[in-house]
């Protein structure tokens, strides 16, 4: 692995205001494509970077949410008198105190800020209490009395769809069915009869908790101008500001959301977490700032999870190993509220053919309301569930026709110009073939039989592969727009107004890299403003592997505009200089014939303020193929235009005594376009793979009768550094014409193939498949004993 100290630059020291002023020892421009030390690294490791959780403004008060103890119940009465009588109480608020729609959510606005008539999951917010300090808050919350009439509840999608099942949202004509849709090509039913071999599997996928270090948190206050200002840990500040305004009944221009660096999010902060409660509390705190910071336990209860579900997948091929027919049926549990359940289901469906050409296919997807905790966005967004099923069945089918699983994949893998199993024409960069070929030639693959033979006593070994694919951006309907803003400061440095939140992936540091490359400036000449709906331009959410892809494109445009203005200004100031003889160099514009430099601060002082600020908007191109799908399937994101690809390989060793799976080695070959920053790229792959390993082997967020069983990090098992091996990331570079500098987003592709890769290795080791993930030691050992 590359060492970080090999990277350019060394330290990025934030200034006293924490404004993100960035220094580095490197006073040379760092071209895109080479390592640039992350601008946020120094401030984070020294504790000087301020997250939303670090905000303690003067006069702070605290807010907390009284939550439902029932999975489904009607609220008969709320008695706040006891709480109001408690010392230090500032406000006790219910749904009745909300002037707006009291609903948040996207695309379905179905989640109340505070329950009005009933509660739909154990943990549903009912009463908001504001108090002087956390201890007084706790006492007052305990004094709130809510009388419930418990209602019958449903805890799995099948029961929720059964006739006569209790309905969560009475206004929906589809009952508990949030979404259902179909993607089909040809005649899959008939095509199976033409296959030489057909295999099928039914896979159960668990809930996964994001488990970000920084639990949901923020501070808010209403200022003298009546503006509700909020500093909050969020991936979607601009969307939040509109949702908060509508839900609480305040004009959108009176809501300001600031999103500092997040202490992790992974999709779990894509939308409203504490924002509605914070805003409501601030509207009732007499102008004092209010803080909410969820405990880990409250985070577990209240935050969304990766959709649990069941994927049934059938795949058939002809005698020569050509994939011919695919059918896939997925059913997800979206919990009590829609969240992003519709899009998550469609993203899953839209990737059900993986990286393969298949002549005929039929993919059906459903997402269903239950009285479980809400599901939502999580790195991979429905795709890891579906790839988990597909890539295991691909292995099963290869075995059935006696083909090597890697050659089988290679034979059916798409190339540029091909039509995928779902009818998507691969018009953009796509190089899964090289990923597979590199895996095929790797010693860990060619030498696998020998390694397996050398298994010690009481151990079994297996080597697995899997491929994955992930579309970037929002799909063909929802506009993916980013607007960059860049300012030349009067001291000759530059300020980038980030439009997309940085949840830890390094996208705002990448902004310095991009603008520095275009403007030929060293990283130390830039400062960053984190997303602020009053200062930055709406560039949508930090999601869908589109952060640097979209904002980067906009920033290239804005930097180009500013560059022209700077050079124009110099040509104006120096009539003897010819415009084409001027170039930007670090800190100056150089007149190339005589090498004379005009300092940037001199130029900046001569420019009008409006001239020093450049903005540019970029709209992502979309796939304009007309595929026969329902409008909602299209709107929720099918098909995509540009995709990332990956092939994973792993060696595992299974302990016959305990059933534990030890991951001995892990490699990932990835096509995410051109690499902008090798070490940040590697971090994304490694982080994705490790989160995928957790999904495959340990992480099992358990809910019984709607109540969380794994209540904390002692019982929800995340992998530690002792549990994961070194992960080798090998980029397979392509040039993506729609991406900035040819890149594609790399934030999610790492997670999609980990579960099936490990499951394939495990199946090879033990000779059969465990179809319920995660593959915990207890599941493996129980299956081994049963098989014996």
């Amino acid at each position, binding site marked *: 692995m590359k060492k970080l100290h090999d990277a350019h630059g060394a330290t990025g020291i934030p200034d006293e205001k924490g404004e993100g002023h960035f220094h580095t020892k490197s006073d040379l421009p760092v071209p895109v494509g080479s390592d640039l030390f992350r601008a946020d690294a120094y401030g984070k490791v020294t504790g000087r970077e301020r997250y939303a959780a670090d905000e303690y403004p003067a006069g702070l008060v605290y807010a907390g949410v009284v939550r439902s103890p029932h999975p489904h119940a009607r609220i008969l009465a709320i008695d706040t008198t006891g709480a109001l009588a408690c010392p230090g109480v500032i406000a006790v608020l219910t749904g009745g105190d909300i002037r707006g729609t009291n609903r948040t959510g996207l695309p379905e606005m179905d989640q109340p800020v505070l329950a009005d008539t009933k509660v739909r999951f154990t943990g549903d917010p009912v009463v908001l209490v504001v108090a002087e300090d956390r201890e007084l808050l*706790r006492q007052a919350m305990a004094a709130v009395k809510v009388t419930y009439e418990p209602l019958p509840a449903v805890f799995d999608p099948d029961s929720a769809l059964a006739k006569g099942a209790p309905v969560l949202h009475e206004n929906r004509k589809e009952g508990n069915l949030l979404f259902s849709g179909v993607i089909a090509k040809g005649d899959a039913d008939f095509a199976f009869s033409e296959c030489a071999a057909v295999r099928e599997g039914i896979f159960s996928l668990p809930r996964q908790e994001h488990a970000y270090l920084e639990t949901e948190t923020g501070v808010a206050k209403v200022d003298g101008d009546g503006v509700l200002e909020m500093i909050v840990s969020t991936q979607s500040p601009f969307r939040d500001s509109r949702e908060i305004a509508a839900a609480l009944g305040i004009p959108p221009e009176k809501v300001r959301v600031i999103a500092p660096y997040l202490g992790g999010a992974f999709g779990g902060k894509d939308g409203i977490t504490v924002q509605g409660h914070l805003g409501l509390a601030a509207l009732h705190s007499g102008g004092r700032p209010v803080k909410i910071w969820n405990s880990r336990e409250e985070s577990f209860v209240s935050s969304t999870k990766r959709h649990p579900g069941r994927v049934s997948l059938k795949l058939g091929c002809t005698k020569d190993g050509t994939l011919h027919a695919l059918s896939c049926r997925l059913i997800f549990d979206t919990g009590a509220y829609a969240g992003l359940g519709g899009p998550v289901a469609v993203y899953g469906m839209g990737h059900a053919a993986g990286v393969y050409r298949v002549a005929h296919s039929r993919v059906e997807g459903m997402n269903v309301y239950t009285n479980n905790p809400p599901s939502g966005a999580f790195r991979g967004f429905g795709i890891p569930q579906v790839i988990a099923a597909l890539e295991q069945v691909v292995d099963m089918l290869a075995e059935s026709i006696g083909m090597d699983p890697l050659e089988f994949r290679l034979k059916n893998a798409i190339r540029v110009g091909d039509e995928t199993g779902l009818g998507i024409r691969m018009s953009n960069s796509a190089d899964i073939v090289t990923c597979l070929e590199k895996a095929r030639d790797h010693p860990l693959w060619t030498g696998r039989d020998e390694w397996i033979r050398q298994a010690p*006593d*009481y151990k079994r070994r297996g080597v697995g592969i899997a491929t994955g694919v992930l579309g970037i951006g929002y799909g063909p309907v929802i506009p993916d727009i980013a607007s960059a803003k860049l300012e030349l400061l009067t001291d000759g440095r530059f300020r980038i107004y980030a439009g997309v939140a940085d949840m830890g992936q390094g996208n705002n540091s990448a902004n310095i890299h991009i603008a520095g490359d275009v403007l030929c400036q060293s990283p130390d000449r830039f400062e960053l403003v984190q997303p602020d709906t009053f200062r930055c331009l709406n560039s949508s959410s930090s999601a869908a592997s589109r952060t640097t892809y979209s904002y980067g494109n906009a920033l290239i445009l804005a930097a180009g505009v500013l560059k022209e203005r700077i050079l124009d200004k110099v040509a104006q100031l120096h009539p003897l200089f010819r415009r084409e003889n001027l170039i930007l160099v670090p800190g100056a514009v150089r007149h190339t014939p005589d090498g004379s430099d005009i300092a940037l601060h001199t130029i900046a002082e001569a420019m009008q303020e409006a001239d020093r600020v450049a903005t540019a908007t970029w709209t992502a191109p979309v796939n304009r193929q007309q595929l026969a799908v329902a409008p909602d399937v299209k709107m929720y994101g099918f098909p995509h235009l540009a995709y990332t690809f990956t092939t994973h390989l792993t060696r595992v060793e299974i302990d016959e*005594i*305990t059933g534990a799976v030890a991951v001995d080695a892990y490699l990932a070959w990835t096509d995410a376009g051109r690499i902008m920053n090798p070490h940040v790229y590697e971090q994304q792959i490694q982080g994705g793979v490790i989160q995928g390993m957790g999904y495959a082997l*340990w992480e099992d967020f358990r809910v019984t009768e709607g109540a969380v069983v794994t209540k904390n990090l002692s019982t929800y098992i995340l992998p*530690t*550094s002792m549990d994961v091996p070194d992960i080798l990331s090998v980029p397979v570079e392509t040039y993506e014409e729609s991406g900035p500098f040819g890149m594609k987003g790399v934030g999610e592709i790492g997670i999609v193939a980990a579960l099936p890769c490990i499951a394939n290795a495990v199946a090879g080791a033990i000779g059969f498949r465990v179809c319920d993930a995660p593959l915990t030691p*207890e599941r493996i050992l*129980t299956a081994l004993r049963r098989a014996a």
Partner: protein
Amino acid sequence: MSEVALPASLEEVYAIRKREPGAAVLAGGTDLLVRMRADGKKPPVLIGLERIPGLSGIAIQDGVVRIGPMVTHQNLLDSPVIRKHLAVMHEAAQVLGSPPVRHMGTIGGNICTASPAGDLLPALYVLDAEVEISSPAKKRVVPIATFITGPGRTILTGQEILTGIRIPVPDPGYQGFYRKVGQRRALAISIVSMAALLMVSPDKTVRSARFAWGSVGPVVMRFPDVESSFAGRTFGPALLADVGRQYSERIRPISDIRASASYRKMVAAGLPLKILEQ
């Protein structure tokens, strides 16, 4: 907030506890602080014992290792005495918690918490450890198995406090092993754990074998009748598999959030074989 007292002598501890019967003794805090947060109950006073001379330190004298209750798990790991004479305890400390937990948690805390999953406990049981209990009135010494009476329960009453651990150094012919199965490789609470002391002749005849099991019953379990049945048999996989089978039938594990009872029995059946893994 609780008041935190850092007395310099046992007498001061007794005085504080007399004044505040609800005071809690803090011997590291890796369990107590977690429990306080979970229960939302704060004792009026937390009595930290780290400044009391005599409650720390590891010494060997007359064939007995004396360990102060405030010795941390990291102290155990760093101690040449433990490594040389009580290898089973060294191995147990290696797999206990994580580096921060090992630097904070103490042997006395591990004993008084009396969790059947406590990683030092099977080692202490298999070593026939005794504990010293002090009170203003008297001092008494009892075997570890007498001290712990159930999950989270000990014989400590009133003003009594654990003030020392005494471990007879086993015959140098013994080899010690600690094998633990958790849900992951670090920061893992034991699902099944086993401490073993084995004395095997050069001809592979077992002369003596002792086993103590954690997380498979309300307290750490030893069965003298089973242990005595191994003497005279030939050491090897067949014997260890038989050891596992016998204990698997005798233990009485429960199902909890970490594992089912049946999984614990399956694992116990194979765990002695892990003695062969180095």
